[in-house]
Each structure stands twice: as structure tokens, then as C-alpha cells.
């Protein structure tokens, strides 16, 4: 029998009241943890969708400038402004593609053959050469076309020309420049001959040193937009940053909601503890009169609050995991996000916050109990 024992017995003596207080903490912990997990998963989802690491500048014709596409000349101007960084111009179109007997529409990206390896990774086969009639297909397109026979080595017809699939690209996810996962990538020269075009839709600049990004961007803008705005320059770093910022503030906002519910739970613990002190005033007087010191009385009541808090946090932690699983599976589409270290940390954080809130709520009632005048407490009816 210790002070902890006394606290435990008092908690179980009023089990209904204690259960209600624990439920409050449980809800609070679940709210904090699952909101944190949700926010974190949204962030992770963005991160996964956006493969660029932020080293890319995309240059495209300014709207309303009269320029619809870039000429060779303009591309070489951009190349000069970009200095030693690799400049990859490309064009894109949508066309009907025939594989064997199957016709379907597909996105087609035309990139100078020498630049393709610098922009896209291959999963199988080889990169096409500028002179041959080869092409590459996106990983998702390859995956989804098993029945039609669109695979490595297959022949596809675009209009009257036949192209051989020389390679399959690695999955790239959603990008700000191009999205080749469901597309066909052809050498620019083939595109230029086939469609009789010699202009580019956009230009991608891969900046080698991320610190040069702003300088390169400015150099391009200065060079191209001398008289009027010919180009718009977008750098993915800024976009990524703003997206991650948004994801972070969503997390903070969601967790704020959780924190409020925990504070409400804290108030309910405070209430339970105040009741516990008030109805035991006489008992506290007895304890003090037979030699229990102030800090011992205080400890007894803090233990009581801690028991409520720890039980609530433990139940809340387990339920958070379940809620987190459901939420990531249903809302975000992949429970894998839950097994991320940050998601687990949110559960731990929620539990810790629950315990701290309970202890803090118990502090004042415990202090009050410890500083009762023993004689007045003994006279209390």
C-alpha cells in the first residue's frame, strides 16, 4: 500500500466518473494523433507525387504575348542565358496510336534524342537514337497495355509511320514539366519530320547547382523578356516549397483541432480532480493529522490525475493507430503512410500531450488538497 495505491483505489472507487474523464483524454489523443497522421500523409502523398527535387526550371511562352511556341533561335537564346546548365526543349501532342489491331489515343512527347537520358530514367531497353524510328513508353502505359501487346520491342503505328519500342521508362510520378508515365516519348527529329513542325512547346532547364536557380531564372527572364514578356519562367523549387508549406499548415491546423479537444479533456480532468478533493476534504484532514506531509498528499492527487491520463493515453494510442489506419486507407488511399516514422511520432506526441495535460490539470487540485488547513479539513462535514 502506497500513495499510488491510494490514488488507484480512489480512481476505481468512482469508476463511472473516472471512465468519463478517461474517455475525454482518449478522444483528445485520437484527435491529435490522427489529425497529425492525416496531415503528414497528405504531405507524404504530395512528396511522392512530385518527383522533381526542385532543380528544374520550366520556360513556357507567356500567355497573350503572341508567342505560342519557341523557335530554334529562341531555344538557343535560352541555352545561352542558362550558361552551362542543360537545356532540354520539348514538344508534345496527342495522337492516335495503333498497336496490332488496337487503336487508342496517347500523349506524345518529342525530346531531342541526346537529351532524353538527362531527363528520364529507363527501366528496360535502350534510349532511342535521333536517326532511327525508335520510341520509349511510360511505365504505366506499359503496365496497362499488357493485353494490347504494347511492350518492349513492339511496333506501333502513328499515322503512316511505324515506330519500334526500344525502351520502357521508369515510373516518374506527377511532374511540373512532363508526365511521361502514360505517354510515348519520341526523338524530336522524328516528330519534326512526321508532323512537319520545327517549334518547341516548352523548355526545361536542369540547374546543376540548386543555389544558382534564382540566378539562372533571372538570366533567362532578362534575356528573353527584353522588350515584352515572351516567356514565363516557373521554378519547381518555389512551387514545391509552397506545397509543402501548405501541407505543413494543414497539419498544424488539424492538430490544433486535436489540441483543443485535449484541452477540453484536461478541463474535465480538472473537474474530476476538484470533485475528488472537495469530497475528500475530511479524509485529507485525517491523513494530515496522522502525519502525512503536504508533498505526500500532493503526490497522491497527482498520481490520481496521472492514472487517468496514462490510461487515457494508452487506450488513445492504440485507437489512434486504428483510426490512423482507417483514415490513411480511406482518405489518402494507402495505409503505408501510417508506418512512416513521423506518423508514429504523432501518436507518441498525442499520448505525451494527453499525459501532460492530465498531470497539469491535476496540479492545482493537488496543490489545493495539500494546502488545506488540517483542522478546518477535519471539521468539514
Amino acid at each position: 500500500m502506497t500513495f499510488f495505491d491510494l490514488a488507484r483505489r480512489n480512481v476505481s472507487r468512482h469508476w463511472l466518473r473516472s471512465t468519463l474523464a478517461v474517455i475525454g483524454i482518449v478522444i483528445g489523443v485520437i484527435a491529435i494523433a490522427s489529425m497529425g497522421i492525416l496531415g503528414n500523409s497528405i504531405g507524404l502523398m504530395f512528396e511522392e507525387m512530385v518527383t522533381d527535387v526542385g532543380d528544374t526550371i520550366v520556360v513556357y511562352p507567356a500567355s497573350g504575348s503572341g508567342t505560342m511556341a519557341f523557335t530554334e533561335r529562341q531555344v538557343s537564346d535560352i541555352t545561352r542565358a542558362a550558361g552551362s546548365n542543360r537545356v532540354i526543349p520539348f514538344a508534345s501532342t496527342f495522337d492516335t496510336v495503333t498497336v496490332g489491331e488496337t487503336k487508342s489515343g496517347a500523349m506524345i512527347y518529342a525530346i531531342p534524342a541526346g537529351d532524353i537520358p538527362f531527363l528520364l530514367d529507363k527501366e528496360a531497353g535502350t534510349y532511342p537514337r535521333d536517326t532511327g524510328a525508335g520510341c520509349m513508353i511510360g511505365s504505366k502505359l506499359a503496365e496497362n497495355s499488357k493485353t494490347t501487346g504494347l511492350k518492349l520491342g513492339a511496333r506501333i503505328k502513328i499515322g503512316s509511320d511505324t515506330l519500334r519500342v526500344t525502351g520502357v521508362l521508369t515510373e516518374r510520378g506527377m511532374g511540373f514539366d512532363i508526365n511521361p508515365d502514360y505517354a510515348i516519348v519520341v526523338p524530336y527529329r522524328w516528330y519534326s519530320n512526321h508532323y512537319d513542325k520545327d517549334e518547341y512547346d516548352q523548355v526545361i532547364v536542369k540547374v546543376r547547382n540548386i543555389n544558382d536557380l534564382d540566378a539562372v531564372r533571372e538570366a533567362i527572364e532578362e534575356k528573353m523578356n527584353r522588350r515584352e514578356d515572351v516567356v514565363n519562367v516557373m521554378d519547381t523549387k518555389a512551387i514545391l516549397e509552397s506545397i509543402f508549406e501548405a501541407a505543413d499548415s494543414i497539419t498544424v491546423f488539424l492538430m490544433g483541432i486535436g489540441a483543443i479537444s485535449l484541452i477540453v479533456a484536461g478541463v474535465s480532468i480538472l473537474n474530476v480532480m476538484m470533485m475528488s478533493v472537495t469530497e475528500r476534504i475530511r479524509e485529507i484532514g485525517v491523513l494530515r493529522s496522522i502525519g502525512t506531509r503536504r508533498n505526500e498528499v500532493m503526490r497522491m492527487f497527482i498520481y490520481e490525475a496521472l492514472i487517468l491520463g496514462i490510461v487515457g493515453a494508452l487506450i488513445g494510442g492504440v485507437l489512434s493507430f486504428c483510426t490512423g489506419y482507417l483514415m490513411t486507407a480511406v482518405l489518402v488511399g494507402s495505409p503505408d503512410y501510417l508506418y512512416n516514422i513521423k506518423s508514429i511520432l504523432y501518436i507518441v506526441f498525442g499520448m505525451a500531450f494527453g499525459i501532460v495535460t492530465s498531470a497539469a490539470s491535476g496540479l492545482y487540485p493537488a496543490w489545493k488538497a495539500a494546502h488545506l488547513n488540517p483542522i478546518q479539513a477535519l471539521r468539514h462535514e
Partner: protein
Amino acid sequence: MPVIRFDNVTKVYPLPAGDVVALAGIDLDIEEGEFILVMGPSGSGKSTLLNIMGSLDVPTSGEVTIAGKQISRMTDDELTLMRRDHIGFVFQQFNLIPLLSVVENVEYPLILRGRKSGSRERAEEVLRSVGITETHFTHKPGELSGGQQQRAAIARALVNSPDFLLCDEPTGNLDTKTGTAIMDLIAQMNREEGKTVVTVTHDPRMTAYADRTIQLVDGRVV
């Protein structure tokens, strides 16, 4: 050297309607082994006197010396330890802790003192010596009769072998027969174990037990 010495002790409760003088200059010496009865009309300051003797309260002026220590210079913790180690309290309302079983109530002061091993045996031994049967040890206090609860309370007061026992109307809530049995028990502790006992009572028949009776009126010894 007396166990308890009061030297011109006053206790004043300041109230908005005016000060209430509960004790007005008390001089008192209680020797070891004495059985003292404190009597007097309601409101005469008996409980206040006992509380100050028990270091539950401190005097407004004057000096109280308990077991050789002056209590006016003590901190709250020191006063509490004084109660724990030197004083046994018995109250009119028994005041057992409802959360604890009878034997745990008696064990509690031992545990407060940090005694781990043998505390249960010691508690049981004291309970037996005050006449509680084994079958009642694990009951909650509310399941016992008033007389049994007061016996358990006396056991709790005695378990730490205090220097003296302070009883505030220990028979006030009991019928005459049970009350007499409790007084017999207290007297027995005084006779056989040599405990100093101070008991507040309204019952004039109790004077038969006492070595000395102190009459209080309006906070003065008469």
C-alpha cells in the same frame, strides 16, 4: 521534564465580527505516564487545546514544548513529522480512511514512516491488542460497529508507539456501554504500556480513570 509544557499560551481566531479568544493564557505541564482529563462547557477551548498539544495547530502567542521541542519554530513539515512520530490522535468521529481496510488503516502510519517489512504483522498485533478479531481485519471501516471503529482508530494511534495519546471526545459517538469499554481500553494502555493520555470528555464519570482533571472555561484553566 514534562512531555508537554504550555507556557502562557493564547489562541485567537480573528473573525470579521471580532476576535474569538479560544485560549487565554494557559500554563500547563503534563508529565510522562499521566492520564489527564480535559473538561468544560462547549466552546471553552478544549479541542483547540488538544490540537495545539497535537501540533496540528500553533498558538497565537506563548510557547508550547512537545517532547523537548518548541513548536513555534517548526515548519509545516516538521510539525507533520512530530504528529507522525510522537503523537497518536483519536477523534470523536473515528476518522478511519474509507478507502483502506481496517488493517491497512492501522498499517498506514507505519508506511508513512517508511517501514516496509513486518508492517502488516505489527498492525495485526496492535489490532489484536485493542480487541479486534481477525475476521474483521480486511473489512472496510464502514462495515464495523462504532465501537469497533474506535478500537481500530486507537490501534492506528498506537501503532507508531507515540509518546502520548490525544483523544477528543472518544466516546462522544458511542452508547454508554461501548463508551465505557473504550475508556477501559484507553486506561489499560495508560496503565500497562505507560502511555501519556490526554482525553477531552463531557462525561463526569470518566474522572474515575484520570490522575488529574483540567477544567476549562472561556479558554482559561479554572
